[in-house]
């Protein structure tokens, strides 16, 4: 099937521009064994200018993966460990009085970086969380009477630990919605575990090299937006999101009582953009239903709020989303 010149042009450009993806993956692969999905999702976040919530038990190399990604793209990286006594100023910065000049100067906080790792984001109080989430949304921070734009690219990767929930401040739904993706990081396979053992206990720990510049990421972002999305795919995305709100209309009457709130329009936007980024990672100039399905769970799992009935029946948000994808007709 010959493709027309427009799509051939995009294809060629994508092939050229997405070449860095494999280089990043292979560099990160020097220190992270497995976790390919997590690495790809981080790249999708970078390409879509969306933030990511990483959830997984401690010790799954979440922090190492994020710091390695920052190193590969030659970006400024900051890590903030969220604790109950953290203050908003510790994140965004604060005006400091300079006695010599008798003036206030702004001391910028760790949020002024390209990649920010907000470790255990649910351990800090709501005011700290909202300060960071506002910065994530607006891409700017106001300290005193001055407003500062944040770096570009700017990616926040927040981690949550699904265990030890005592004394935590769970993120409200409205704030969780601001994360483009919620990625659940799972344990490595047995073979990967063995590889980790060999790599981390013998010889020197490998070093990650810079393989791309932030400017390349920004250029790739523009290309991602140009990826073709057929009307059928757009309608499919809308159907998927609507099905999370009104399951009964999609033959899922059994799930009506299990959904308190369905996905927001923000989910529609992110699902479309993330699907394009997924197509980009696959070096393709158009989006297929496979892209939507591949990324759909990570876009929707934190946006579908199950009811108490669902919890009682042990029906999770993931189960609802999965059912939706199994029910909505692929165009």
């Amino acid at each position, binding site marked *: 099937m010959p493709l027309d010149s427009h799509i051939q042009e995009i294809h060629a450009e994508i092939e050229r521009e997405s070449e860095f993806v494999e280089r990043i993956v292979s560099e990160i692969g020097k220190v992270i064994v497995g976790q390919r999905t997590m690495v790809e999702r981080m790249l999708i976040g970078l390409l879509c200018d969306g933030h990511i919530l990483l959830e997984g038990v401690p010790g799954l190399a979440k922090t190492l993966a994020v710091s390695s990604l920052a190193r590969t793209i030659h970006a400024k990286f900051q890590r903030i460990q969220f604790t109950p006594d953290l203050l908003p100023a510790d994140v965004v910065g604060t005006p400091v009085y300079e006695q010599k000049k008798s003036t206030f100067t702004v001391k910028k906080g760790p949020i002024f970086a390209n990649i920010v790792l907000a470790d255990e984001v649910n351990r800090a109080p709501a005011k700290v969380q909202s300060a960071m989430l506002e910065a994530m949304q607006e891409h700017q921070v106001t300290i005193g009477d001055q407003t500062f734009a944040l770096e570009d690219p700017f990616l926040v990767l927040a981690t949550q630990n699904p265990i030890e929930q005592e004394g935590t401040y769970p993120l409200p739904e409205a704030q969780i919605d601001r994360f483009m993706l919620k990625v659940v990081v799972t344990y490595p396979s047995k073979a990967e575990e063995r590889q980790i053992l060999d790599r981390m206990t013998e010889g020197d720990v490998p070093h990650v090299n810079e393989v791309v510049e932030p400017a390349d990421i920004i250029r790739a972002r523009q290309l991602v937006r140009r990826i073709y999305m057929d009307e059928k795919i757009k309608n499919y995305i809308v159907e998927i999101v609507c099905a999370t709100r009104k399951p009964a209309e999609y033959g899922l009457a059994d799930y009506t009582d299990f959904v308190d709130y369905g996905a927001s329009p923000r989910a529609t936007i992110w699902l479309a953009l993330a699907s394009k980024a997924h197509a980009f990672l696959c070096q393709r100039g158009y989006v*297929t239903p496979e892209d939507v*399905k591949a990324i759909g769970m990570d876009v929707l799992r934190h946006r579908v709020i199950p009811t108490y009935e669902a919890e009682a029946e042990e029906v999770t948000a993931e189960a609802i989303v999965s059912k939706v994808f*199994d029910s909505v*007709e692929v165009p």
Partner: protein
Amino acid sequence: MSYPGVVPHRGMLRVPLFSLCVVLLLAVGDAWPADDIRIEAQLDRGTVALDETATLVVKAEWEGPSDRFALVIPQAPRVHNLIVIGSKRGTRSWADEKGEHSAQEFSYVLQPESEGNAAVGAVRVQFTTPEGASGDLVTQPLQLRVGSPVHTRWRFSWEDVGGLVVLAGLAGYAGWRRWKKKTVRETASLRGQKDPFAAALSEIASARREGNQKAFYGAVLSLLKQLTGERTGVPTAALSARDLVPFAGRLVSEESSAERLRDLLSRIDAILYAPATDDLDADMDVTELFVRNLVSESQIGKRERKDASR
């Protein structure tokens, strides 16, 4: 036992002698195996039509395990106005409150030669026991009446012709009603997707005539989903073209066709979801023929499976 001084009376001696004889007779009787095995011959019917068959069952039954008697397969019975066209044998054992029982059956399928009387001669069954005893048993002869064939040739009379005319009229009316109902349903199904293959094939043909590639391959994908769903029972609505690839081998019998189907499924995404092109796809004619063959093969397979299940 005798006591001193007592002379036995003649009448007194008669009783033990008689008892001894009875005991001896019983002992001898018990040792005679033919008394423990019974034989019986039965026909499954008293009258048989000329174009039917009757079955003769010779059944030998005894108490105890099946190996208590070994039967020699008897020769086919002598018959009159019949032909023995088949035979089989079977052994069974069972137990009830009286103990264990065994039986052996020899059955013969008999086909009559002409209308009238037929007869089955006695069947002789020889047996042996593990102790070395042997003997034979004979069944009673049986009679059978052979009637006229059930499926007789039609002999026309004016009454029959009249009846036929009425029947033909009724059949014609029923056929017309059925045709009308089917036609209405098919027309409705084209609109309401009730007959998926016909609707999808018609859509494929129409899209090919218009040269609309996206509509053509969309209809092809829809048809392949329906075929896969029907063949595998898997709900296919939410599956993409690539999701159907693993099922390709189950839709066609030949590996070359399966390979071609996989190739088609892997190409469909690029056609359906990439920007439309002005290039006419020469493959559309071939693809249409291919999917039509798939439908035919599926329908033939369906019929064969239905017949086999009967």
